């Protein structure tokens, strides 16, 4: 709606004072003299109906209605509001004109309703009360920031850059003075933690202390900004906003591959990608012309939304909920606004409407569905879908190319061999005909012994099958004995049978939905007599009625412990396999068969009911298809094409050369498949756009008025450049348009909060009317403008802030400072607060010398206690601690399973990333103490730190070693009194160890000792290392 007021009426008196006092009429309806509340009634109406043309951006007719003084002054032709006299107020005359009148206001859009006009009339009648506390109709945050002039200050010599001018001006206003500079040890530790999230090494500290150059600090800052660890540290908060996680969330909390997006963020931050581009690529990289792979990876930002794939969910509800999440996240991250109220109703305080909300919703309504039924008729068949993009990776591609060359060569050999086999071979045909005559016989084996390595029970049924009973162990190896008194056994048949007692009838024991089994090895030995040396029977071929893709039955008899036979998705029905022996086997008299069925998959993917049979006679006869037998009876020159094919196919399958080639081919194909490129989730538009509408009461089942993609009316216009409906790309560009009053402010404010512990706006999640006003509005605007004008450079802004004297102050608190500003809102001292969860970990591992700085790739798993990942629904995952240095990588790379996040991080205020969060709480709890003292990750860190102290300060006194420990942990040398405390601890621990040497050996456990270390000495130093790692100072930025 647009309202334009060419002003003509004459001037009249204005009087703005106290509100009248009457209430509602008897019937509850508003009576004419019921007091109007400007804030909740008039203000929203003026904002929505008038301010677009009579506001900060445009002043049609010279009139502004966004500010008390301006509104009451009127426009070019005089006053428009005559308090107490609605009949003489031009505003009322204009809005009350009949629709279509050339002078009606709003000039564009729907006329006001009778009720709205009445509201304005009553408001003016009552004196046009406009409280002085609400001077600006348009909240400060919705007006474009302009670069403010630098304030005058008395102690100008203290200031290093404009940041300080703004801070000092406020301090002087309050009669406060800045604190002295922090000492150099504190400063290098503070800025290193802030910029790369790691503590400085003792060498870094020494170099800085010894650098007399006036620009030593500046150079240090530049070095840190250029470090490739910068992006790792700064990606952490961004990934909180992006609610990035490695699993879906909700009941079926399976993993998804999205880590390339996480790595994209790290790289983009390291490259100081301009924030406007950083935003556009994440929100709409897929829509860029000829989008590069990295630009599509960036769209993982919005694929990070949790996805409910619980059986029985309604796919459309899930889809809509994900878009709600995307709109809310966008509001929070770029606009610093809580939009979600507008899902159900117009925002109560901020000028956002339901139309605004669903206008934004419409931008996201055209992407592919991400959870749907695999079978439309089966509500339980919900699958996680949505576009997933394979990534190019030069190393992987080279490997794949090499394999492909090899595969092609083998394929050529196969073709050649096949040509040879097509030639008639009289001898072979005669032999085969003989085999057909010699019919094989199956002998179900009577079980004389059965053992389950997992302790499962069993029962032998009348048909000689074995039915497993009792709890199903995750993994199991069955040992089965039989004494059949047979000779000339050429093959064995294994049947995996169903049974009503098995979950989903089986044949597996794991669960009713997917009762698979995974048979890793089928082994047999023959014991000649009781106690005799068993002879292993070799198998040369395996066939089965069905094998799962990549789980061919041959995997059960090869020597690879990982390959196996399985039957997904052919559940709930019986299956069989036949294993052919190298030579005929005899088992007569006292001798016995002993079978072993190894099933190591986990999750009880074991056979629930099975039967073993021995096959005597020429086993090949058993598998000669009737088509071949028929063809063989016909003279080879007179066979039909079909008959020739049958013979060839059979001959191929039984030709050793051909089979070897075939197996090699299959193996290579498998290898090729195994090194398939990683994938990542991306956004992608569907071709057929969906209808867009407001959802009444936020319910997608009750669509109301149609909407088109549009941005909130209170903010700057969206220029889509043409008639076509604007797209996500237009939305993204609109967000980072320099006209946008919010994006730059909201962004610099969050960085400020990361450095100082709270933002200039202490509610970074809410720049709206109910949020806190900035403590330093001019500084916020200066930083925002500086940010945009620097080409949206994050590093430039961070550099500016950390080079300020404000940042470099000591953080010590005096009683006076605490009384004057307990929260440090005015920055008369430097920042001091506990590190984030991830930084606590990285810091400890770094001090211990364990930290691996390798970047990128799939998530890693540090130690966590057993049983954390056990949960109803979804796939079962075994938590396996990552091997080698992987487990010591930075916290950013720790796997995040939303249903069961890494507990050590949760204890330090990390959350499960079910929703966007721009501010973490910072709590101080006993669980944090327990984590740092006893989590095996930190216990190991303390041992490693102790070993480091001994190794890096060999032959040194205790005092020297303690000084080294403190230097490593907190960058400064200890005071004598601190040395005393730690020396006393060391001594008493040495005595304790001497009294009980065994305890030291237990404590050190498998931790590797270097040649000259003893467990006792390391255990004593472990106490010192633990104490130092647990200091408040060690886990705080000081």
């Amino acid at each position, binding site marked *: 709606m647009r309202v334009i007021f060419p002003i003509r009426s004459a001037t009249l008196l204005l009087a703005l004072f106290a509100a009248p006092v009457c209430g509602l009429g008897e019937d509850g309806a508003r009576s004419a003299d019921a007091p109007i509340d400007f804030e909740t009634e008039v203000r929203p109406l003026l904002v929505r109906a008038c301010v677009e043309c009579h506001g900060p951006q445009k002043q049609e007719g010279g009139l502004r209605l966004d500010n008390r003084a301006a509104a009451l002054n009127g426009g070019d032709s005089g006053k428009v509001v005559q308090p107490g006299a609605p009949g003489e107020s031009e505003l009322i005359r204009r809005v009350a004109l009949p629709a279509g009148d050339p002078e009606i206001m709003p000039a564009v859009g729907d006329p006001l309703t009778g009720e709205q006009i009445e509201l304005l009339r009553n408001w003016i009648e009552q004196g046009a009360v406009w409280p002085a506390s609400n001077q600006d109709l348009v909240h400060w945050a919705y007006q474009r920031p302009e670069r403010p002039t630098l304030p005058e200050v008395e102690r100008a010599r203290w200031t290093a850059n404009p940041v300080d001018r703004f801070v000092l001006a406020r301090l002087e206003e309050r009669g406060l003075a800045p604190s002295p500079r922090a000492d150099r040890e504190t400063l290098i530790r503070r800025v290193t933690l802030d910029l790369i999230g790691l503590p400085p090494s003792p060498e870094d500290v020494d170099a800085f202390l010894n650098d007399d150059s006036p620009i030593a600090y500046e150079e240090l800052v530049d070095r840190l900004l250029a470090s490739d660890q910068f992006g790792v540290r700064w990606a952490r908060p961004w990934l909180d906003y992006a609610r990035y996680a490695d699993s879906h969330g909700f009941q079926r*909390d399976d993993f998804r591959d999205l880590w390339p997006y996480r790595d994209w963020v790290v790289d983009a931050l390291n490259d100081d990608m301009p924030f406007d581009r950083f935003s556009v690529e994440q929100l709409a990289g897929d829509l860029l012309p000829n989008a590069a792979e990295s630009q599509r990876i960036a769209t993982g930002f919005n694929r990070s939304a949790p996805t409910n794939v619980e059986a029985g969910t309604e796919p459309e509800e899930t889809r809509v909920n994900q878009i709600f999440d995307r709109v809310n996240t966008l509001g929070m991250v770029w606009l610093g606004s809580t939009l979600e109220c507008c899902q159900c109703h117009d925002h109560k305080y901020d000028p956002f409407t339901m139309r605004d909300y669903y206008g934004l919703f419409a931008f996201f309504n055209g992407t592919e569905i991400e959870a749907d039924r695999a079978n439309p008729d089966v509500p339980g068949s919900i699958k996680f879908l949505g576009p997933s993009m394979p990534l190019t990776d030069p190393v992987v591609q080279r490997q794949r190319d090499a394999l492909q060359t090899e595969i092609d060569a083998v394929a050529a050999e196969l073709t050649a061999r096949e040509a040879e086999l097509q030639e008639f071979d009289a001898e072979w045909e005669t032999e085969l005909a003989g085999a057909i005559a010699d019919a094989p016989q199956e002998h179900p084996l009577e079980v004389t012994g059965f053992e389950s390595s997992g302790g499962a029970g069993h029962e032998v049924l009348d048909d000689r099958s074995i039915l497993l009973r009792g709890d199903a162990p995750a993994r199991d190896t069955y040992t089965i004995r039989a004494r059949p008194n047979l000779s000339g056994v050429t093959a064995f048949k294994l049947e995996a049978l169903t049974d009503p007692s098995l979950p989903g009838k089986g044949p597996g024991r794991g669960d009713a939905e997917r009762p698979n089994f995974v048979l890793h090895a089928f082994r047999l030995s023959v014991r000649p007599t009781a106690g005799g040396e068993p002879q292993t029977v070799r198998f040369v071929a395996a066939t089965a009625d069905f094998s799962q893709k990549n789980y061919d039955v041959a995997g059960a008899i090869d020597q690879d412990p990982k390959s196996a036979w399985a039957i997904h998705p052919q559940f709930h029905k019986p299956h069989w396999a036949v294993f052919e022996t190298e030579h005929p086997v005899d088992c007569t008299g006292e001798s016995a068969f002993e079978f072993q069925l190894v099933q190591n998959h986990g999750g009880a993917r074991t056979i629930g009911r099975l039967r073993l049979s021995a096959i005597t006679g020429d086993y090949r006869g058993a598998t000669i298809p009737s088509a071949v037998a028929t063809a063989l009876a016909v003279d080879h020159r007179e066979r039909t094409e079909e008959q020739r094919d049958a013979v060839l196919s059979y001959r191929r399958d039984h030709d050793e050369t051909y089979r070897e080639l075939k197996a090699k081919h299959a193996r290579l194909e498998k290898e090729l498949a195994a090194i398939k490129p990683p994938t990542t989730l991306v956004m992608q538009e569907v071709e057929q756009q969906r209808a867009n509408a407001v959802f009444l009461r936020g319910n997608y089942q009750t669509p109301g008025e149609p909407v088109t993609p549009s941005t909130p009316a209170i903010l700057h216009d969206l220029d889509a450049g043409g008639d076509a409906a604007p797209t996500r790309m237009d939305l993204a560009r609109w967000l980072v348009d320099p006209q946008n009053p919010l994006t730059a402010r909201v962004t610099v404010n969050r960085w400020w909060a990361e450095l100082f512990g709270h933002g200039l706006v202490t509610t970074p999640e809410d720049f709206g009317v109910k949020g806190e006003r900035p403590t330093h509005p001019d500084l916020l605007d200066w930083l925002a403008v500086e940010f945009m004008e620097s080409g949206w450079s994050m590093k430039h802004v961070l550099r500016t802030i950390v080079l300020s004297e404000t940042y470099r102050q000591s953080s010590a608190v005096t009683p006076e400072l605490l009384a004057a500003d307990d929260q440090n809102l005015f920055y008369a001292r430097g920042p001091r607060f506990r590190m984030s969860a991830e930084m606590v970990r990285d810091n400890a591992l770094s001090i211990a010398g364990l930290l691996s700085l390798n970047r990128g790739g799939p998530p890693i798993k540090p130690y966590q206690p057993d049983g954390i990942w056990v949960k109803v629904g979804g796939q079962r995952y075994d938590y396996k601690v990552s091997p080698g240095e992987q487990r010591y990588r930075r916290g950013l790379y720790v796997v995040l399973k939303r249903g069961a996040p890494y507990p050590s991080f949760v204890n330090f205020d990390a959350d499960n990333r079910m929703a966007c969060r721009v501010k973490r709480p910072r709590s101080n709890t006993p669980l944090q103490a327990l984590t740092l003292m006893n989590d095996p990750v930190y216990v190991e860190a303390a041992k490693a730190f102790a070993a480091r102290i001994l190794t890096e300060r060999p032959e040194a006194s205790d005092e020297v070693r303690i000084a080294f420990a403190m230097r490593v942990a907190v960058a400064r040398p200890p005071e004598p009194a601190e040395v005393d405390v730690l020396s006393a601890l060391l001594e008493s621990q040495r005595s*304790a160890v001497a009294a009980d040497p065994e305890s030291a050996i237990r404590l050190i456990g498998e931790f590797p000792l270097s040649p000259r270390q003893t467990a006792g000495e390391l255990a004593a130093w472990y106490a010192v290392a633990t104490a130092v790692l647990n200091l408040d100072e060690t886990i705080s930025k000081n």
Partner: protein
Amino acid sequence: MISLEQTLLQATRRQFLGRSGVCLGAAALASLLREDSSLRAADRDPRAARPAMSPPRAKHVIYLHMIGAPSQLDLFTHRPELSARDGEECPESFLEGRRFAFIGGKMTLAGSPFRFSRHGESGQEISELLPHLSGVADELAIVRTLHTEEINHAPAQMFLHTGFGRGGRPSFGSWVNYGLGTENQNLPAYVVMLSGPLGGAGTSVWSNGFLPSVYQGVQFRSSGDPVLFLSNPDGQSDADRRRIFDAVKSLNERRLALVGDPEIATRISQYEMAYRMQTSVPDLMDIAHETKQTIDLYGAQPGGASFANNCLLARRLVERGVRIIELYDADWDHHSNIRKSLPEKCEQVDRAMAALIADLKQRGLLDETLIVWGSEFGRTPLRQGVNGEGNSTNPGRDHHKDAYCTWLAGGGVKGGVSYGETDEFGFSPVDKPVHVHDLNATLLHLLGLDHERLTFKYQGREFRLTDVHGEVLHDLIV
């Protein structure tokens, strides 16, 4: 004027001497210096006990959540008409506008195969599957018309406990913890125990959401460390550990004196509490010293892990002043074979639930302890004969969100009450419907908290457990 250092150390020492028994947060200390008693809510010591908003009827709450949704129609809501028309096609009028998770096509009415009878002076109707609970029928207020808005497990679990179906909000227990703080400085205020695996919503149902993490539920586990990271590493004795704690404390006190950050004082007190927990938690978890009579009453097994053990532990937690105790029991999602599975599950919980009520009563603790039994939703009056994969199964029941049961007992709850009435098949309330927000408003009220005033400002909004809804059910309150 006395120096900052002295003040802080005095405050710290006072905590250690246990005189106040309360640790001081940053601003609390600051205000101590200013002698300013008007503390803002967020500035208080986050754990300290706080006065209730209205006279509390209960000081503790034990929440028994049966994960998966037990069938109210086979336990509490006796619908003879449903049994009489068992196997008939459901009249269309009952199905209109209703959502189901799995069932579709022809809808068949499913009566309960179990017998119901009346118990106690109040004559509460309870099924034969809960014989022990029937024995304490006069203590129970059974709500028969609870309804919710979510029809899938994870969202419904979140909705019940956080008032919102998509995660990220604080749980009921966290809200209570935030509102009331704790009386016990040696144990967490909010304890969670499981029998069986976590529900689909994972740890969200006891998460602090956007409240500070000091308000999160702390899981006590029945295997491994009862609280994560509670025990010292192998080879570290209590004396070894105490020496380290003392060194840390001494160095932290020095630091506090030097830089004056009150957060350090809080850190010192939190380390002391951690140390005390290392004794208090194992002591709590050891039920071997309970009398044989008590152990038998619950059907607990020392050294074992079960719902019964957890019920006994819940009583021990109440005795120690723990504010909120939540027990989650898994495997109640009976889409199929309900005739066999439901009796098995009931047998696992019935005796222990009744024992918990009786035991608290005989110890005089029932009056101050609110017990809540419930689940994320209920089950359909309709038969489900096909599982999620489309294969036929022995009959069960699908998810039902429009009317199901919960019961309350103890602290301030009127016993022997049956609240609300459903239609003849049990599809919908016909009298006194109770929304999840109403239930939560009532639970908060019983604990002395006003659901409209218990708010936390986040993202520009004053958030509540009950959103903008919720009516206290005064009829359930003595």
